[in-house]
């Protein structure tokens, strides 16, 4: 970094104080919200908030390189990875509130409080003095200093960690790989299959005409029933969402009902 982030003078101190308190409260709130949120996507967003405030803290503490790495790698790559998987799994799958393991919540709360108390005692007893005087390594020479350390004292961990990354990448590929049992069907075979199956049009997408467009939300047929074909076989079929309230009353009444009934019969006849 070209200029130090650490500002001098009492104004800098006040700025830092205000910044600290706001961000601290925000991150704690976000963390608690992450634990309590029902939908997984909300948890991801709140975690992003926590990570970003931590990036600011790193910058405040004279670790600018780390701050940017936090934003770019951690928030930008890792958290996005989380969101991708959430999409695959089903974005609106909400956890139920009921706890299935007896006493889990009570013991979790107790242990949490105990841990908090003990660690606070540790802090109280530890000699946490004030910050060391600012040096060139913090700020201007941060990257250089880090690079120095990585390639001298921490060379072995560096090499081993890179090996670890390679192994992780290969492992992910292996885990996600699906073995092909038979020969790969050619385009001609696929087309012939499709015609022979009786349905030449593609499958309906999920959530069409539904109120939510999650991957596990079934599409609604014109007569209001759910189409099983619209949801991938991998996902658990979500029940309980009945047909939406359309303006104009119940779908059975009126020409919409008759229109709905006839095409549905033919549609279902073709929908084997």
């Amino acid at each position, binding site marked *: 970094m070209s200029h130090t982030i650490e500002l001098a003078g009492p104004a800098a101190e006040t700025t830092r104080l205000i910044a600290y308190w706001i961000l601290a409260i925000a991150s704690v709130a976000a963390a608690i919200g992450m634990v309590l949120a029902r939908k997984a996507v909300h948890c991801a967003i709140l975690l992003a908030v926590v990570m970003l405030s931590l990036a600011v803290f790193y910058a405040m503490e004279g670790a600018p390189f780390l701050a940017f790495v936090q934003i770019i790698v951690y928030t930008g790559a890792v958290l996005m990875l989380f969101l991708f998987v959430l999409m695959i799994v089903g974005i609106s799958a909400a956890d139920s509130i009921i706890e299935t*393991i007896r006493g*889990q919540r009570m*013991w*979790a709360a107790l*242990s*949490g409080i105990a*841990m908090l108390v*003990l*660690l606070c005692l*540790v802090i109280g007893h530890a000699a946490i003095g004030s910050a060391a005087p600012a040096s060139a390594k913090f700020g201007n020479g941060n990257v250089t200093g880090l690079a120095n350390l990585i390639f001298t004292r921490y060379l072995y961990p560096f090499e081993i960690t890179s090996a670890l990354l390679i192994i992780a990448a290969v492992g992910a590929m292996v885990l996600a790989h699906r073995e092909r049992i038979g020969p790969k069907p050619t385009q001609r075979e696929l087309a012939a299959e499709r015609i022979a199956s009786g349905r030449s049009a593609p499958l309906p997408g999920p959530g069409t005409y539904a109120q939510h467009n999650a991957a596990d939300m079934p599409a609604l047929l014109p007569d209001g029933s759910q189409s099983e074909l619209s949801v991938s076989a991998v996902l658990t079929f979500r029940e309980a969402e009945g047909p939406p309230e359309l303006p104009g009353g119940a779908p059975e009444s009126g020409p919409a009902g008759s229109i709905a009934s006839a095409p549905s019969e033919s549609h279902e006849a073709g929908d084997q």
Partner: protein
Amino acid sequence: MTGSGHAPFVINSALTVLPPAPLHATGLQDAAGLLLAFPLLGAAILLLGGKRTNRWGHLVGVAMPLLAFAYGVAAYVQMLGYPAAQRVRELTLYQFINVGRFQIPLGLRLDQLSICFVLLITGVGSLIFIFAVGYMANDPERRRFFGYMNLFLAAMLLLVLGSNYLVLYAGWEGVGLASYLLIGFWQFKNSAAVAAKKAFVANRVGDVGLSLAIMLMFAEFGTTNFTGVFGAVHTASHGVVLAIGLLLLLGACGKSAQVPLQSWLLDAMEGPTPVSALIHAATMVTAGVYLIVRSAPIFDLSADARLAVAIVGAVTLLWGAIIGCAKDDIKKALAGSTMSQIGYMMLAAGLGPAGYVFAIAHLLAHGFFKAGMFLGAGSVKHEMDDEVDMRRFGGLWKVMPITWVTFGLGYLAIIGVPPFSGFFTKDPIIDAAFGQGGTSGALLGTAALLGAGITSFYMSRVMFMTFGGERRWDEKVHPHEAPPVMTSPMIVLAIGSVAAGGFLILDNRLLNFLGPVTGVPPTSHGIWTRAGIATLVLVAIGIVIAWALYGRREVPVVAPAGNPVTVAARKDLYGDAINEGLLMRPGQWLTRLSVFFDNRGVDGLVNTVAATFGGTSGRMRRLQSGFVRSYALSMLVGAVLLVGALLLVRL
């Protein structure tokens, strides 16, 4: 206090007599190992040779004791050539144990006492072996029988020839083994197997006494050699000498079937009759008397031990006599008689030097007449198709005259009619008992006197029931006289029954011979003493009563109920019941208690420990619920505890 050796022995009042120091055996006597080698060779050939030797095995079996007897006579003749002070000879076959201070040679001692026994064992033994050739002629296992008998002979000779107590003990154990094998010879008979076991166990109890005595001797004197022990015994304290004496007495009780270890002798009659004759009449059961007489220097130093021996002898002679009165089995009646006569010998041995010689004299004479009577009983049994119940005999004197005559001579000898053997050997014992003086002398003498009367009663009963009266036997049985191979030994033994007693006692012959070894009575007795006359009176009364009950009257074939004394005598004076109640049942309870304790207590403890672990693990595995969050909870709790612990350390 030994004499110069060549004059007739001076009767002195010295009570302690040290036997002369042994010299090394020379000449023929140096080959005394042959006495052991012959019977051992016979046993080896017969037992190891197996069925191949069946046809000629019995001849080898008889030849060996004859060879041993020949050697014994030669050694005896050689011994007579020595002056009296030089007759004790020892030789060593090899060094048996050589461990620092503990030196035991396998040594043989040829002195006057042992040569008497050697002649008795081999002589009477040979006769009985010849009898057994005929008696066991129909038994397919005859070869094995002779093998065991030779084994017995070897062990018995080792017993009497040993020059130290440990070799004696080796022979002691050997005869116990041979007795077990021979009593249980007919293995298929359950009663025989049980009797053999009983004999062995009762003997074992006695053996403990003997082995403890030997250990005590070694601990006190550092040696078990006769010479060493007898030379050093005067240095030991009274208590030790008394202990050794009592322990030796315990051993003798076991082997000689004295009270309290008498229960096995009557059951031992399950064995073949030659076994009963040789082992349980003439030789093995007299080993106890040999032990006491051999240990004379020890007993001479302890009047209490001697008194114990005499009391045991007196009690047993009455016990055996009473039992013998009620037994209908001829062999068991003779066994009771054996028990009683050995009681006499023990009584004599318990009188100290006053009685040792008479004990040996009675022993030698008893060997003749009791063996003769047993062979007679065997001949009767052989002819009566193995029937032994005297109530089924009767009138046999017409059919088996030789048996009748030889048995009758033995009978006259045992009851003590002059001039037969028993008169010369039994009366001095009774006289010596009275001669001891004091209350003990009076009681012992009275007991012996009474015993003589009862002896004549039951022996006359046996005679009248077996040979006298009318025939009571079955139609199917056709008794006739036994074959010559069986009658010839009986005739020889009958001659011994007649003459042996007189030969030994008259002219102080045995006294002069044995004196240097055992000591001599302080006062001499004549042939006719007051006690002797009283004995004869009682003997006559006994004969008369027996005649009245069994000679004149019809003997019922089925045994009548009898008065309480008869019932008690039939049950061996409740000897078995006492043993069972005192020892066997508590022993069984003890084992049952141990088993219970082992099962419940020890096993229970082990099983409980195992079950505890099993139960604990069964409960603890429920912690493995499979839920990741439970595991995560335990991790967090663990971390909390860790931080807490670290904090505690730092505080």
